[in-house]
C-alpha cells in the first residue's frame, strides 16, 4: 500500500542555511509517527514545508488519502493543503482569542462549508442548514475531546491544557486523514500529558486518523509512537521503532554530544 504521506528529498534553504537537507519521511495509514530531534533541528520547518507555509526549495511531497489517488502538495497554499486533509496544530498556541470555544471549532469546519457573500446576506435555507450542521458537528468534536463543558466560554479563558486540546479539536473539525501535532504536550503537567497520550491513541483507533507529532517529551514519544524519525541539523539521522531509535549511536550522539562518557 502507498504511504499516505510520502516526502522525498525535501530540502529547504534560507539564504545559505540548509534548514532541511534531503529528508525522506513516509507515513503509513493508521500510524502514529514521531519526529524528534534537538532544538533547532528543523522539525517545525518540516511541518511548515508540508503545510505550505514555506515553499520547499526542492523535493517531493505526495499524499495518498485513504481510498483516493496520489497527489502532490508542492505549490499548494496552506488552506489548500488543509482542504486535502492535512490538519495541524501549533507549537505556541494559536487559538482565535476573540472567539468562543465552539466558534474556534466552527472555523475548522470553514473549508467544508460553502456559503459565500450571497448566502450571508440572503440566508437561504441551504445556508441555515449548513450553519446548523456545522454547529452540531463542532459540538460533537468537543464532546469527543472532552471540552464540551467549555462550549460557550471564550477560548482565551481556558486553562492551558484545555487550550492545547482545543487546538486539536479545531484541527479535527477540518476532517483530516493526517494530523500534524507540533509539540502537543509542551508545558503540560504529567496528568495532562497522560490524558493527551490516551486522546492520541483514541483518535488513531476511532477516528481512522494517522498522526505525525513533534515532541520533546521522550516518555510520551516512546510510549505512543509506532515509528520515530530523528533529525539533526536538518538531516535525517535515524528512523525506526522506539527500541531501535533508543539504541542508535547517532541519536545518542545528537542528543548528548560527542563525548557522552565524559559527561
Amino acid at each position: 500500500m502507498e504511504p499516505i504521506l510520502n516526502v522525498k528529498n525535501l530540502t529547504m534553504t534560507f539564504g545559505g542555511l540548509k534548514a532541511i537537507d534531503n529528508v525522506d519521511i513516509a507515513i503509513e495509514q493508521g500510524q502514529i509517527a514521531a519526529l524528534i530531534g534537538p532544538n533547532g533541528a528543523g522539525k517545525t520547518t518540516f511541518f511548515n514545508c508540508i503545510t505550505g507555509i514555506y515553499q520547499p526549495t526542492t523535493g517531493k511531497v505526495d499524499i495518498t488519502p485513504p481510498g483516493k489517488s496520489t497527489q502532490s502538495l508542492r505549490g499548494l497554499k496552506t488552506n489548500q493543503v488543509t482542504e486535502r486533509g492535512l490538519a495541524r496544530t501549533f507549537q505556541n498556541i494559536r487559538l482565535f482569542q476573540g472567539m468562543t470555544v465552539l466558534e474556534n471549532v466552527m472555523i475548522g469546519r470553514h473549508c467544508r462549508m460553502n456559503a459565500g457573500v450571497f448566502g450571508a446576506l440572503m440566508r437561504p435555507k441551504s445556508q441555515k442548514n449548513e450553519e446548523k450542521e456545522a454547529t452540531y458537528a463542532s459540538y460533537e468534536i468537543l464532546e469527543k475531546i472532552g471540552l464540551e463543558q467549555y462550549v460557550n466560554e471564550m477560548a482565551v479563558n481556558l486553562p492551558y491544557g484545555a487550550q492545547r486540546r482545543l487546538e486539536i479539536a479545531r484541527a479535527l473539525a477540518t476532517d483530516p486523514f493526517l494530523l500534524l501535532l507540533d509539540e502537543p504536550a509542551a508545558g503540560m503537567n504529567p496528568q495532562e500529558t497522560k490524558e493527551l497520550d490516551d486522546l492520541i491513541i483514541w483518535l488513531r483507533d476511532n477516528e481512522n486518523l494517522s498522526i505525525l507529532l513533534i515532541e520533546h517529551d521522550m516518555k510520551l514519544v516512546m510510549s505512543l509512537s509506532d515509528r520515530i524519525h530523528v533529525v539533526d541539523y536538518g538531516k535525517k539521522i535515524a528512523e525506526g521503532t522506539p527500541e531501535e531509535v533508543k539504541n542508535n549511536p547517532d541519536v545518542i550522539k545528537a542528543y548528548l554530544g560527542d563525548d557522552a562518557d565524559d559527561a
Partner: protein
Amino acid sequence: MVTKKEIKQAVFVALWFMVLTFPIMVIKVNTIKHIVIFRWSHLFWIGIGTFFASLTWNYFLRRKEEKQKAETSDDVPLVHRLLQNDRFRIPFLVVLAIFFLFYPFVFSMYHTSIMISALVYVMLGLGLNIVVGLAGLLDLGYVAFYCVGAYAYALLNLHFGVNFWLALPISAALGFLFGTLLGYPVLRLRGDYLAIVTLGFGEIIRIIMENWDAFSNGPRGISNIPPPSFFGIDLGQHGTVIYIYFIVTGLVLMTIFFVSRLENSRLGRSWIAMRDDDIACQAMGIDKVKTKLTAFALGATWASIGGVVFAAKTSYINPMSFTIMESITILCVVVIGGMGSAIGVIAGALVLILLPEYLRAVAEYRMLVFGALQVIVMVFKPEGLIKSVRKTYEFKKVEE
C-alpha cells in the same frame, strides 16, 4: 480623596500651562498703536483652571482603574443590555423608530440636513467597520470609494442622464470592483504597511479627479447633480430634503441588517479569525485571498452607496470633499464608536458628526472642545463609546 501627590502634580500642570499659553493668552500686540498689552488676569485663570482640570482628570482616571480592578468580568454596555432584555427591547426600538420617523417634521430643514450627513457617516462607518473592526485591516484610504460612488453618480448623470435609483446599484458594483482592485496589491501587507498603501490609494483617486480635467471637470467639480426623483413629482426644496432623509434612513437600516448578517455568518467568522491570527486561519483552511478581498470589496460597496447619497444631497461635488481628512473622520467614527461594534459605530457617527454642528454655540472653541472630547473618550473608554459585544453562538443542547 485627593492625595498630596496629586495636588503637587496639579500645581506643576498649572504652572506648565501658564508658561505654555503665555504667548497666546497673555501677550496681545496692538499693531496699530504699536503697544503690547499684558493680560495678567488671563494667566491667573489659566492657572486656576488647569489646576482643577488636572485634579478631576486624575480623579476619574483613578476611579476607572479601581473599577477595572473590582470587576474582573467584562461589563456589558447599557444599550446591549436594553436590546437583550425582551421587556425593554420592543419599547426601546419603538421610541427610536418614532423619533427618526418624526424627526424631519419636528425639526427644521437645517437639522434634517445635518442628520442626513450623520446618517451617511453611519453607513460609511458601518462599511469601514467591516474592514477595520472585523477583518482587522487598517484602511486609511476609505474615502476613495466614497469618491468613486459620488463621481459615478455625477458623471453617469451628466453624460447619460442616469437617475439616482439606477446609479445606486451601478455605484455599488463599481465600489465592489474598486475594493477588489485595491485589495489585490495589498494582499501581502498588514498593519502599518497596509495603512500607508491604502493612504496612497485614497490620495491617488483624489488627485486623478483633480487633474484629469476632461473626465472629471478637475477642481471645478460637477454641479447641478439632481436629487433623487419621486415619480417625477417636484417636491420643492424642503420636501426634497425630507425625501432624501427617508432614503438615507432606509439605506442605513438596510446596511445595519446586511452588516449584522455578514458578521454572524461563515464569512464574518473567517474575518474575525483572520484578524485574530493570520497563519492559524490559513492552516484551518480559510482562503486568505478570498477573505481579504471580500472584506475590502464589501466595505467599499457601502462607501460607494454613501457617495451617491452625498452627491445627490449636496448637488455639487469636487475633489476637495474627498481629502485624507475625510478618511480620518470615518476612521474616528469607527474607533471612537467602538471597533467591531455596529451600535457603537452608529453612536460614534451621530456624536462625531452632530456634535461639531451643535457646538457652534461655543463658536470659536468648538474644534477645541471637539478635539478634547475625542481625547477624553479614548483615555477613559479605549474600547469606544459602546464596545463590541459580539453575538456569540450560545450553544444549548437539544434533547431529542
